[in-house]
């Protein structure tokens, strides 16, 4: 579904991605790991369409479409979802309120009829159970005064509502205690199907104890320098990143 070829991107004058190649198929879970500053979050942001980054070379195809040519909202409508590392606080906008707009705009994009209030209520109720989130949180101003766990659960709730084909979880484990981590991971696992795929961007292995990856990629200085199966994550946990970096001759 996703085909990244020689992707290069920069912010200002700073080159961050220096030629990423990655193929993702339906049903797969890919973990992107790497030391701080390696470009993990940049990759997630570029895929979601954050405008701070300039793509200087390469291509990204999503179900055969040129992803880089689409606005962020079109990418969402095509089935891409980014769970933010730092979910934004938006005073005066509740999750329920803006998710209704989001769902109906996406349905319109796909030529589907809008959902009415009753259908929303039913659907929200079902999705709330995925991440054990309650109505009062969803009625509050988005992320304002939410705990770290509440913010991340809210991200996964939104993912459940939008049912993306490709979900990118950007450091979703950061700022979570072990219970919150488990709830978030369970939510992600419930949403997994043979038709969708997940990219888990993470610094640590611990999230991968709950969301088991099919592939693990190590990103270093803007390139994928090593790929392997889930055992690679365990190896990284034990040995750190240095052995990979020294193998590169650096």
């Amino acid at each position, binding site marked *: 579904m996703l085909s990244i070829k020689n992707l290069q991107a920069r912010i200002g004058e700073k080159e961050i991605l220096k030629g990423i190649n990655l193929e993702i198929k339906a049903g797969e879970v890919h973990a992107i790991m790497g030391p701080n500053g390696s470009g993990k979050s940049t990759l997630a942001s570029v895929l*979601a369409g954050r405008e701070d980054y300039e793509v200087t070379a390469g291509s990204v195809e999503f179900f055969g479409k040129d992803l880089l040519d689409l606005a962020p*909202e079109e990418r969402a*409508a095509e089935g891409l979802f980014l769970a933010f590392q730092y979910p*934004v606080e*938006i005073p*005066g906008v509740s999750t329920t309120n*803006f998710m209704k707009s*989001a769902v109906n705009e*996406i349905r319109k994009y796909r030529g589907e009829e809008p959902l009415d209030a009753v259908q929303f209520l039913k659907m929200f109720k079902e999705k709330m159970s995925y991440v054990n989130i309650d109505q009062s949180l969803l009625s509050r101003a988005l992320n304002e005064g939410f705990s770290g766990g509440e913010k991340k659960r809210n991200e996964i709730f939104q993912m459940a509502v939008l049912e993306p084909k490709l979900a990118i979880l950007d450091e979703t484990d950061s700022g979570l205690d072990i219970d919150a981590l488990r709830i978030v991971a369970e939510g992600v696992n419930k949403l997994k199907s043979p038709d969708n795929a997940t990219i888990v961007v993470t610094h640590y292995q611990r999230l991968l104890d709950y969301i088991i990856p099919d592939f693990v990629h190590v990103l270093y200085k803007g390139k994928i320098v090593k790929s392997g199966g889930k055992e690679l994550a365990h190896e990284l946990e034990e040995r750190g990143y240095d052995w990979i970096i020294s193998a590169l001759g650096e």
Partner: protein
Amino acid sequence: MLYKELTSASQKEAIERFKAKGFPTNKWEEWKYASLKSWNEKDLDWTPAALNETSSASLQTQNGNTSFHGTLPAGVEFISFDAFLVANPTIATKWEQRFPILDQNSLYDLNTALVVNTQVLWVKAGVSVDQAITHDFILSAAQASAVQSRVIVYVETDASLTLIERAYTKEGSAEVLSNFVQEIYVNEKANLTYVKEQDLAQNTTHIDHTFITQLSNSQVDLFTFSLNAAYIRNNLHFYSDGENVVSNLNGLYVPGEDQLMDSHTVVDHRKPNSESHELYKGVLLGNSTGVFNGKIFVRPDAQKTNAFQSCKNVLASTRATMNTKPQLEIWADDVKCSHGTTTGQLNDEALFYLRSRGISLANARTLLLLAFVQEVIDRVTHQETKLRLTDKIISKIQTSLAI
């Protein structure tokens, strides 16, 4: 200039004062951003013809003529100012000194000289008027005109009233300068809720002078929603002349292409133990200009005053301009006063977040702007008015962002 025959001495004096000064220009400090200079050169009809517009409102001001329609609620009178002064001789003597008219206000003199029909809405002591009274303020002229209107609201002790004013221009009207003076007197333990909706035509210039005197234990909740007009200037003056007075000033202005909206507020705390809360917000669209000038005076006697002022603005366009100037003059030492003004743009990170969920850029901006203005709209308790204002504001923002 051709004026009607002025009979009274006070009118003659007022017109001389106006003639000496003319319309305010940008050389006048208080009118720096909101000059009316061009009106000095216009050939104006100073006494535009009476109107006979149909309106469902009980109170109607049509080109300066105010009348009451339907049955007056029990305990409410509607009479001319002259008759009111005859009925209340004690008020007559103190009326002229009740508050200082600020300098640089030649328009007040113009109104005094030329206004023809000053009426009083008078709520008697102890009367709670259950239903809100709607006031349609309608303008329409065949040729470029200046319209003078004056309405007085007198709320006696322990009485309460809700007023919903809707100012608009009739379709097809020529250019109008509307000079509207309102003098409001809220006595002890009385309550007034007043919502002003200013939704006028693009060839209308509307100047609203609202002077409110409050006595002890009274509360006023005032809302000014400035939606449309080439030019709107609100001179809102609160004279907090008693103890335990609560004055709430709420304002929302949404100027669009070729529109200027200027809010000049004064809260004058003259006695101890009173409070004022001022919340103004602006969304500036297109190439619009906004002005906020908020003065708070705390007089030497007004110990234990709590006076708060906040003015927040979003420039929704790179071509829009906002000018803010908070001014606090505090002569008492035991007071709590604060003020804060901010002017900024929408948060890019919030916009990206909403877009990443499938919401278009225009809708994401509308959503954020509505969230921003909601705080002011939500304070309106009259449901019908709240819904109407919300619809109008959504529609104005959406139209502007779609261009």
